[in-house]
């Protein structure tokens, strides 16, 4: 069994650099399974917005990564929730056009297991499928126990989640 750092060193995980602004500190971190690298490098830049809005999915991803990693409050109202529990400790981070699935190794430390367009996930109802896939890859990863934070309360997995 290995730590996150050891898994990054072994090439099983990659750490996402959020390219924060000079005045921002990295309060939360995002890792991704190494198998996601081709998707992040080649597919994500080609995704187009189903809503035909000015922000491309990769711009939405970058903005979400910044907000998440800078530790900003994640939600302000029931209407605008970028973080949702799916099942079995697998969470969904979302933008208008993207759905990102993964789990929290510890508070404020997210591991991405899958990313896809919201259109595809919703039209084919892939929520449970991706949650099962994330749980499978989590089980295969030689990560120290406990591998994830269980439960459905977003306040357990991120700090500064909600509007007071």
């Amino acid at each position: 069994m290995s730590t996150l750092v050891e898994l990054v060193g072994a090439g099983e995980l990659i750490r996402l650099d959020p390219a924060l602004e000079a005045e921002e500190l990295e309060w939360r971190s995002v890792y991704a399974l190494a198998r996601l690298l081709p998707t992040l490098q080649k597919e994500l830049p080609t995704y187009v917005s189903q809503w035909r809005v000015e922000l491309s999915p990769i711009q939405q991803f970058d903005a979400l990564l910044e907000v998440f990693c800078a530790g900003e409050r994640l939600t302000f109202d029931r209407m605008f929730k970028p973080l949702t529990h799916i099942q079995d400790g697998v969470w969904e981070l979302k933008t208008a056009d993207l759905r990102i699935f993964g789990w929290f190794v510890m508070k404020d430390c997210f591991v991405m297991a899958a990313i896809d367009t919201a259109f595809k996930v919703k039209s084919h109802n892939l929520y449970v499928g991706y949650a099962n896939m994330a749980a499978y890859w989590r089980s295969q990863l030689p990560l120290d126990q406990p591998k994830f934070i269980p439960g459905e309360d977003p306040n357990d997995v991120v700090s500064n989640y909600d509007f007071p």
Partner: protein
Amino acid sequence: MSFRITISPKDQAAGRFVSRVRRELQKALAEESQKRGLTQSDLARAIGVNRSVISRELRGHKDLSLSRVAELAWAMGRRPVFEIVETAPAQAATGLAAVDAKTD
């Protein structure tokens, strides 16, 4: 191994700015909702559009025009404050380098 997504500095700046504006509107609505029960329907009525338009704009499913930002702020009894500040030296240099590379 650390990985940074491939996005141009220009697209990054634009995406982060639009995202911040939308988040400020969401935050203001949440505050006014908590303070005096203001809803998206109230905003829609005040502006004269369907509630679904407001919902889509605030969720990022529809673009926000600058005038709509001001209208929403007005409907919340607020006003937007906007300024353009100098970036930190490292970021400014990166921006200039990007422009130089494009114009070379």
